[in-house]
Structure formats: structure tokens, C-alpha cells
């Protein structure tokens, strides 16, 4: 097992032969569609009411037929997980870490196939899909290593005649509710953090991407995680709600919308008769992220940085930019260049290497985003098409600050430009918002960079670059305010959310002598 963490290398898709291999993997996957995603509860493979996940780039293609869990299935899965908890928590940390690392190896060996699956099931363009696989591998390796570090405990103050120690123990059965936008990475990250620290897991993946979640679960099972210690429950609201409400769940890990997150917090913190513990909720709930452009910014860097942040993966990342706060001195020039650049973006299928902006995830998302776009007059708009869930990349400018396009999370390819008088003015606007996930600053003044770094409420600030693409171990990810409960995924403190500390103090004095 590695002792120093290195991020999994990304596929070098700029080389033709690598792209060919990717396309072959996609063809091989297509020949196997639709995939079957049953429930995995203990040792049982359980079937239920079937629902389909489809290719957002071509909705007539069914990617997977999944079996929806009911509240009863959730009950069964937690019962199995309580057994799994007994077994898994007693395994030495080294063994658990080795299993996660083996699972990472399995994902690595299926690299192209899994990227192809994310292309099909989540509509992620190749580079993003590959990044998703690589990040899943990173999470498994990183948390495996961090668990070993945590296992050593922390040093405490020692006195003569007294021996103090502190170690970390698993909290208990963990419910994971995963999103569709990083269908491999976030599922793998949340599940593996819980597993690494000795917790059994019940995973409820997003309805739109069950097959990706199954690939992660399969790898973990094959790597030696007992089936009782990791259940897979595809489905919609019902299993999610049942999971959160069950008194036997100790920790809930969630990534998704604010509304769903706040609901989870409320349910989880309502005591149920028989419950003997306080549930902990780890929630990552989105953002309304702004990039500040100062008068001394290099616009040659700003234009591609904004395009990538706002329109990459059609803006469907919690970290995506949806506001640009531009200094008056460069606003006109930047606006003109951005509008010109917008029309160079190709909207198309995720599987097409030439695509800049893929479709959004489903028809509900498409209609919701179109609703925002129709609520004001765009400054510029890109292409769209009607053979998938496409939305045209859209720029707005000069909307009033209280407009919903500026205030609400849209989660689509929409960017609004606002002119500001100063960086401080921009900071005030950011500060007035309810979210605090990511933010950006383009400036070449060291003092301005310092000032914004101190002033910003966001969890991840990116300077002179795009604001998406956090890497495990390099950019621990997560924000405050309504963006989440704070823990940094992919950072050194994340695993502390999944454990409780036990301090033991032994009196070593016998008959007045220290023994």
C-alpha cells in the first residue's frame, strides 16, 4: 500500500490512441445495455419495481434497469448492516484500508469502461467522466491512508502516575444519499469514508445514475467488504426518507439540494422512540458561486476560466460559477469577448469529443433551467438541440441583484454578469448571499488576493483559474452557510466526521509507587 498519496493520473485524452480506446470501451458498453441494477441487501440480490436510467444525450437509450427499494427494503438493509457493523468494525484498520485500496485497483482496471458508463448514464463529457473515475479511485486510496493515520490516535498530555490515551471508534451504521452529477466519485467518497473508519453503509444512489453506484459497490464487495457491511438501494424519495428516519442509523451523509438537505437535517434531528443517540448529518448542499474580476485581471485567462467554470458539464456542479462580478474598468471589453466566446461552444452529446456543453440530466432539469432562462432577456445565447435534454448556454448581464437568476441556484449552463465599482463592492455582494461554497478571483495584485482570501465566506476560493475541478488531497472541498455543514471532502479532517473519540485514563500508581 502506498504511503504517500498521489492523485490518480487522468487519461491523456489529447492523444488519439487514448481517445480510440475510450470509444472502443463505449461501444463495448453499448453492446451490453441495458444494465441490470438490483438491490443488494446482505447476501441477497433483491428485485422490485423496475425504473430506468436513460442517456441524457439520447433519452431513448436505456442505460440501466434498476429495482426501486421501498421502506421495507430499507428496514431489511439496516438490519443486515447492523450485523455488518459488528463484523466490519472489528476488522483491524489495516485490513479495512487494504480492502479499499483493492477496490481502487478494481476501478483502475475498469478505467475506460467506467468512464464510458458515466458518459452514458450521467451525460458527462469524456474528460469529466474520466475525472469522475479518477476521483473515485482517489477517495478510496486517500481515505484508506487517512484511516491508518487516524488509527494511531492523538498524543495527549501525560502526568506521572497516569496513562492517557485517545483513539477513534466508528459511529455506527451510516446512510449515504448520493447525487447523480459525480455518480462514481461522490458515491465512492462518501461510502469509503464511512467504511474506512469501520462503519457499515447503506447507499441510496441518485435515481438518475444507479448503474454507476453499482459499479462502486461491486468493486468494494469484490475487494473484501462484507455484503452485510455495504448495501445498495436504488430508488427515489421513498428509500431516502426511510433511511434518514430510521432510528438505527447513526450518520447520514448527503450531497444534493438545499431543500432536500434541510429536510434531512430536520428529520434526522427528530428523536424516534427507542433511539438512543443523536444522528449526525454531513451535508453538501450546493452553491451560488461568483467569480470576481478585478481591473488588473488578464482577460485572456478570464474568458476561458469563466467559460469552463460556468458551462463545463452544462454547469451541473455544485462548484460551477453562475455569477461574474466584473470591475467597471474591464466590464465592457470582457462582456464583448465573453459573448463572442459563448458562440464557439458546441452543444452536443457527451460521448462526442468535440462537445463543450452536454445535455442536462433529465427533462425536469431541462424545464426548470428553461424557466430561469425565460425569466429575463439574455445578453447572448449558444446553440441548442432537441434530440436530448439540451439547454442553450446562456449569458445574462445587468440584472437587478434581487433577480432569481442572480439569487437562486440554477444548476445549469447559465452565467450572469454584474458590473461592480470595486473588488470590495464585489465582496459585499458575495457576502450578502446565502451560499458559501466556491468562489473565484482574477487579480494580479498580491494585496487584493490577500484581502479577498480573508474576506470571502466561501469554502473554496480559486485565484486566477477556473473554480471547478477540486482534487482529492489538494483542494479539500466543501463550504459553509447554506452550502453545507462544513466538512471538507478529500481533506485531512473529513474522516473525523465518521468516528467518535474515546479517551482512556489509567491510574498507574500502586501503593504509592508508579508501576
Amino acid at each position, binding site marked *: 500500500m502506498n504511503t504517500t498519496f*498521489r*492523485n*490518480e*493520473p*487522468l487519461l*491523456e*485524452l*489529447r492523444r*488519439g490512441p487514448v*481517445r480510440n480506446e475510450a470509444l472502443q470501451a463505449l461501444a463495448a458498453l453499448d453492446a451490453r445495455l441495458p444494465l441490470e441494477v438490483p438491490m443488494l441487501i446482505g447476501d441477497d440480490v433483491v428485485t422490485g419495481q423496475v425504473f430506468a436510467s436513460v442517456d441524457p444525450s439520447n433519452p431513448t437509450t436505456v442505460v440501466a434497469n434498476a429495482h426501486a427499494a421501498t421502506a421495507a427494503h430499507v428496514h431489511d438493509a439496516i438490519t443486515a448492516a447492523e450485523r455488518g457493523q459488528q463484523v466490519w468494525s472489528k476488522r483491524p484498520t489495516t485490513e479495512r484500508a487494504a480492502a479499499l485500496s483493492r477496490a481502487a485497483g478494481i476501478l483502475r482496471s475498469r478505467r475506460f469502461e467506467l468512464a464510458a458508463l458515466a458518459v452514458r448514464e450521467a451525460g458527462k463529457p*469524456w*474528460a469529466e467522466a474520466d475525472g469522475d473515475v479518477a476521483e473515485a479511485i482517489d477517495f478510496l486510496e486517500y481515505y484508506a491512508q487517512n484511516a491508518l493515520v487516524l488509527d494511531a490516535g492523538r498524543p495527549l498530555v501525560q502526568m506521572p502516575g497516569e496513562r492517557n490515551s485517545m483513539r477513534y471508534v466508528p459511529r455506527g451504521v451510516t446512510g449515504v444519499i448520493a447525487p447523480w452529477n459525480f455518480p462514481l466519485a461522490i458515491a465512492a467518497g462518501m461510502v469509503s469514508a464511512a467504511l474506512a473508519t469501520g462503519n457499515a453503509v447503506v447507499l441510496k444512489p441518485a435515481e438518475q445514475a444507479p448503474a454507476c453506484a453499482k459499479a462502486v459497490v461491486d468493486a468494494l464487495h469484490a475487494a473484501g467488504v462484507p455484503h452485510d457491511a455495504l448495501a445498495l438501494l436504488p430508488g427515489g424519495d421513498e428509500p431516502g426518507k426511510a433511511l434518514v428516519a430510521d432510528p438505527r442509523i447513526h450518520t447520514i451523509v448527503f450531497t444534493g439540494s438545499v431543500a432536500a438537505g434541510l429536510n434531512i437535517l430536520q428529520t434526522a434531528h427528530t428523536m424516534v422512540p427507542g433511539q438512543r443517540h443523536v444522528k449526525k448529518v454531513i451535508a453538501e448542499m450546493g452553491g451560488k458561486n461568483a467569480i470576481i474580476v478585478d*481591473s*488588473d*485581471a*488578464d*482577460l*485572456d485567462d478570464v*474568458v*476561458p476560466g469563466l467559460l469552463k467554470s460556468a458551462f463545463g458539464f452544462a454547469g451541473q456542479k455544485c462548484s460551477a460559477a453562475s455569477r461574474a462580478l466584473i470591475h467597471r*474598468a474591464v466590464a465592457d471589453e470582457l462582456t464583448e*469577448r465573453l*459573448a*463572442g*466566446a459563448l*458562440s*464557439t461552444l*458546441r452543444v452536443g452529446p457527451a460521448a*462526442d*469529443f*468535440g462537445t*463543450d456543453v452536454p445535455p442536462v440530466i433529465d427533462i425536469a432539469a431541462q424545464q426548470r433551467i428553461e424557466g430561469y432562462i425565460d425569466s429575463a432577456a439574455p445578453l447572448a445565447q449558444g446553440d441548442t438541440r432537441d434530440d436530448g435534454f439540451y439547454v442553450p448556454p446562456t449569458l445574462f448581464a445587468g440584472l437587478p441583484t434581487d433577480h432569481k437568476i442572480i439569487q437562486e441556484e440554477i444548476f445549469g449552463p447559465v452565467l450572469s454578469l454584474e458590473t461592480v465599482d470595486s473588488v470590495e463592492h464585489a465582496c459585499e455582494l458575495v457576502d450578502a448571499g446565502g451560499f458559501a461554497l466556491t468562489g473565484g478571483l482574477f487579480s*494580479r*495584485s*498580491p*494585496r487584493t488576493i490577500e484581502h479577498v482570501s480573508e474576506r470571502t465566506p466561501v469554502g473554496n476560493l480559486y485565484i486566477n483559474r477556473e473554480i471547478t475541478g477540486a482534487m482529492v488531497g489538494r483542494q479539500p472541498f466543501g463550504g459553509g452557510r447554506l452550502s453545507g455543514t462544513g466538512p471538507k471532502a478529500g481533506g485531512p479532517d473529513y474522516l473525523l466526521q465518521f468516528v467518535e473519540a474515546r479517551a482512556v485514563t489509567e491510574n498507574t500508581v500502586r501503593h504509592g509507587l508508579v508501576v
Partner: protein
Amino acid sequence: MAPNARIPGMAAPTQERPLDLERPIREIGTDLAARMPRPRAVSTARVERRMTELLMKDPALRAALFRFVDVRPACSSPADVTRHLHEFLVDAESKTARRATGITGRPLAQRPIAVAAAAGVKRMAQQFIIGEDARDALPEITKLWRNGVETTVDLLGEATVSETEADTYMRRCEETLRALASAATKPGQVNLSVKVSALTPLLRPTAPERGIEGARPRLERLLRVAKEVGAHLHVDMESFDTREAITALTLDLLSKPEFADGPSAGIVLQAYLVDSPEHLDELLHWAQSTPRTHPFVIRLVKGAYWDHEVVQAAQMGWAPPVFTDRHECDRNFEALTKRLIDATPTVKVAIASHNLRSISHAAAYADARGVGNEDLEFQILRGLGDDTQAAIAATGRQVRAYCPVGDLVAGMAYLVRRLLENTANDSFLAAAASGTDTAELLEAP
């Protein structure tokens, strides 16, 4: 392994005895060095030498000044200029920089400092950039022509992010070709280097076909104009991300029957790329199978995006596409030089280097093969290689100066790159400027 060493037991590939190039290389190199200002084998031309030496010894100051040069065009007022300079100097872990902050921090000094600093940046820029546009640059260009030095003009500009900006760049190229043609005194004198990344906003590393289709109509039009005015059009190479698109587009367009009898055209081979020998295979194969009135020109360079390639590869977890060992890179440069010279006259060779060893090696090998000025030229960067240019020209070999043209804002990225190169610790020019012995500079890599 020396470039001309052979694997023991293997017969020489030709009936000739292996050439001993080391002696002629030493002779040619020593002769060139003797023609340059002493005691430095290569001077940094009009760049302040003391400044160069100071910056090489003080990396923190170097970083501070480069960051200042980089931001200078975006500063709106004297106060803004001074504020940036002061901030960079305060942050620099450098005694010289700290001393300077005593001056830049004084409110009353703002205006004079801003004026002086702006003038300094402008003066530096003017050493590399010969004019704001073709008309502005003509006096300098015709002066070089009169001195027997050929030129190639490179139009600096902001990054192309829209179709409108690509059109603007194409129009500037066309105007430049016509302006130069109107001043030319002999055929073949007009020579323009163009960047595909400026001809389209559609270059995508994972989809070369988009950049190819985006740039095709504009490059095609420039080829027609070049043919019409009898100019040479050279397609520059850029970062590795774009090599596939640039190569495919260039070769594809030049394969059109319409361009078989002109214009003269060429491409670039970057010796720092580990797979450059295979890239040369592709270029030579194409050149041999595509008869053209004007031989295809291949400019051999070391490559100017080394840091970018290494940083990008490290962040992505890729093996760097470039040699990370300077000697390996230099040996590859010599191996490619030989293959190119052997491929004349199907191709015409341009050796673009300021490295005295690389230049002398190419000259020695060409002499041994009987390849002369009609098939081989040397290229230097205006402002950096002026002394080298003069020395090469004085020995009767053909030399061409690569002359950037553009305004200060557009030229800043180019300027920063050149300055970084010039003061980098492993730079040949820096070694030469610091007085390294000529014999040492001429040692086989």
C-alpha cells in the same frame, strides 16, 4: 552517448566512415564566438547585462519584476502602476527588492516611479518587438534586409476566444503580407509566421478536428494571399495540446493541388518533445510524397513551452511529453539536425537556436554533406540573438531574424516568456552571458 557514437558490432549504415564532427564544430564555434562582443560568447544584445546578471542571482527579485512586467499593461494610472510594483517588491524575499520598497512606498514618488517603470518596461519590450504593426516595423525590417539578414514576422496578439478575434488576426496577417510585399526588393523576401491558435477559437486538445475545421478557411486564405504576393508562410508550433491539429491542418492544406506551385510554406519541429523523431518521420514522409515547387521548410527549434508542458503533465499525472534532461534534449536536437540536413533538398532546413553548439553542429554537418545556403538557414529571435545573427551573417551563412510585431499589451506574454528564458539558470544565453568558456559551450551534449 555522443550523437555520432555507434552501437558496438553494428556496421555503419553507409559505406562512408563515420564523420568526425567535433573538430569542425569547435572550429566553426570558435570562429563565431570570436565575431561576437567579448568576453561573452553570446551577449544578450541590448538587454541590460547587469540587469540580467542581477536577476539570475536573485530569483525572488526576478519573479517580482516579471510579475510587474506581466501586469503593467493592465494598470490604469500611475498610482496603479506603482501600487503593483510596490506590492511585488514587498513580497519578494530579496534584499534588493526590500531596499527598493523604501522608494516605491513613498506617496510623492508614485508618479516619477510609475513613469520610469513604465518606460523601463517599454524599452525592454522594444528590444524584442520591432513595431506596433507592419508599417511601423518596416524601417527595422528593411534595415535587416539591407544587411543581408532575412526576416520572418510574427504578429503578437491577445488570445483568440471568438470568431471575430480570429478574423481580426487573419486580416492583420493579410495586411502584413501586403505591406511587406510592397517594400520587398527581391522575390522570396516576405516571410510571415502564423499561429493556428490565433486563427480559430476552436482548438480543443481532445478534438483536433474542431480546431482544424475552424482554422482551415482562414489559413487557406492566407496561403492564397501569400501565393499572390510571393511570400513564404510559416505555421508556428505551440503547446503539445495543439500539435496534432496544427500538423494535420497544415499538411492537408498544402496537399491541395492549388498550392503545389506556391506559396513557399513550412512548419516547426520541436526537439524538446520526446516523440519528435516520429513527428519528423511524419513530416518527411509527407514531404517526399507531396511534390512542391518550393521545398517544404522545417524549422527546428528546441521548443518554447517547456514549463507549461512539465507543469501540466505533473498536475494531470502524465509523463511529460518533453525531455526533462537538457543534455538529452540537446542530443536529440543534433540527431534531428542531421536527419533534416540529410533530407535536403526535398525539405529546406531552418535551425532556430541561440545555442552556439547547436548552430556549429548544424553548420559542420551541412558542410560535410555539401549542403549550402539554398537548403539551410539559421534563425534567431530578434532582441535575444542579435550578436549571434551578426556573427553567423559575417561567416557567409544565411540567417533569418524572427521579428515579433504588436502593441505592448499584446506583446507582454511574449516578452515575459523571452525574459524568463533569458535569465533562467539553465539557459544557454545566460551561461554565455555569465562568461562560460567557449570550449565548454561547444562540448558535445
